[in-house]
């Protein structure tokens, strides 16, 4: 099971990952066309600065995720095989319960679309767009390691 990790000391806060993410989830996948799309594609992750460092925040696909429990529409399921929280847009009603409970603030509401936005690990690509875009290799995709904090 692969997971995204962030080497904080390498992160410049340049937000290339945010742009790459929005682009990867746009209809055209090309920057100039994407900017003209009717519904502007939004990034699934956000870089937040804190204490002089930058932290990309995005969905961790927790096992036993609070968002899955909170989903009153049955639209969120943790897929054990994929190690990923799957979102069924057909069932989602945009009630924002998942946004309300995510302890990482990693799910963002797209109010216009009434759809929550979260990292989908770019499973349709060879590697996540944020990993490919990071100029300092601060975003790392690797097998999950369990660590207690």
């Amino acid at each position, binding site marked *: 099971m692969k*997971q*995204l*990790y*962030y*080497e*904080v000391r390498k992160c410049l806060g340049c937000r290339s990952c945010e742009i790459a993410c929005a682009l990867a989830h746009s209809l055209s996948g090309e920057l100039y066309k994407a900017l003209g799309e009717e519904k502007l594609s939004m990034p699934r992750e*956000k870089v*937040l*600065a*804190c*204490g002089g*460092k930058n*932290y990309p*925040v995005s969905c*961790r696909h*927790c*096992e036993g995720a*609070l968002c899955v*429990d*909170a989903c*009153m*529409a*049955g639209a969120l399921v943790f897929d054990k095989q994929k190690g990923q929280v799957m979102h069924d847009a*057909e*069932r989602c*009603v*945009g*009630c*924002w*319960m998942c*946004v*309300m*409970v*995510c*302890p*990482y*603030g*990693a*799910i*963002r*509401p797209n*109010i*216009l679309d*009434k759809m929550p936005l979260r990292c989908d690990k770019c499973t349709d690509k060879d590697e996540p767009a944020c990993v490919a875009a990071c100029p300092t290799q601060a975003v*790392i995709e690797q097998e*999950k*390691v*369990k*660590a207690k*904090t």
Partner: protein
Amino acid sequence: MKQFVIIGNSAAGIAAAEAIRKTDKQSAVTIISDEDYPAYCRCLISYYLAGQVKEDKILYRPESFYKENNITLLLNKRVERVDPKKNRLICADKTQVSFDALLLATGSSPRFPDVKGIKKDNVFGLRTIKDAMLVSERLPMTKAACVLGGGLVGLKAAYALSKRNIDTKVIVKSKQVLSQMLDWTAAGFVQRRLEEHGVELVLGQDAAEIIGEGDIKAVKLDSGKAIGCELVVVGKGVKPNIELASETEIKTREGIIANNLLQTSIPNIYTAGDVCESFDITMGGPSINALWPVAVEQGRAAGTNMAGGNIIYDGSLGMNALEFFGLAVISLGMYKMLEGDSAYEELVLNNAKEETYKKIVLKNNVIIGVILAKNISNSGVFLSLMRNKVDVSVFKNNLLDDCFGYPAIKDLVPSEERIYV
């Protein structure tokens, strides 16, 4: 091989059954429901009424769920009595069901006010899919409707009715909507949004009588004024279905009293969901938080413990997310500080023009309540600070900033994994 019996087939009941099956594939698991429908998303019935969610999308679990998990589902079956001494249930159809461990997840029922005419036909609660279907069937014959109550159920009903082009008025006893979860300012945002979209609010007045012989003609208010309508939906809160317990030695107050293992006063009988009176983290006392996520959490803990596990449930807190006509609002815990008590403090950011509102209520530098309107992204971070009772003094001045987020609290709350290396 044990007999696990669960009364209630919604959030708590299903979560409990799944938790039992996680560790015990052998024992018998039976779910009993007095409804005639496999588990469905109860909170979506207003969306169903609005015509936004079709019946095929309302099931909470696939139809194969019960078979795949070897769960016996008894629908349309009303349990009449629990006999804790003989560990058995007596049902209305005179059948008996024995159990080794029992979960009372009996939920709650709409509270109907004591108003003349409230028992008339075409006065509905909105609690079950059947309620939604009955209301829906009446709509072709309905031009105008009154909703009694400005709580979440009442407003969701009003939203649904107006989406179905019914002329809808909401009668609210309080001077604002959602008085249980929002302050005056945030409620004002919601009110404006509803009224802009054709939902009329009658604030500060209560229904005195429902008028009409046979068919409903109008709702008479305590002011004497009458509002013409053919249909009434009641959203005046819910009462926990405690009858099965209160007729036995199982201890009840407002709900069925649970300890931190979700056991009732009888150790092999558990309780979870809307009927369960457990502990409120922000209030610091016993309370019922009748909410879907809480029911799932409690159901899972109860089920795990029934099957021999040991989950300590440290309580819940009030939380609600709502969305009306593009305005998102979230309310967590206590939305107002106690006036005149210096332990309390409120941090407020109010931008009426942009309809953004953030309010954080602190007690001794611990967050006990939050209201967010429009910009709701950080809600879960606040919830985490509340759950973990984190002293926020060091970053108190940053809490309302748009760039405040998880990185600021990452070393103060437990996390499953370390992703920042």
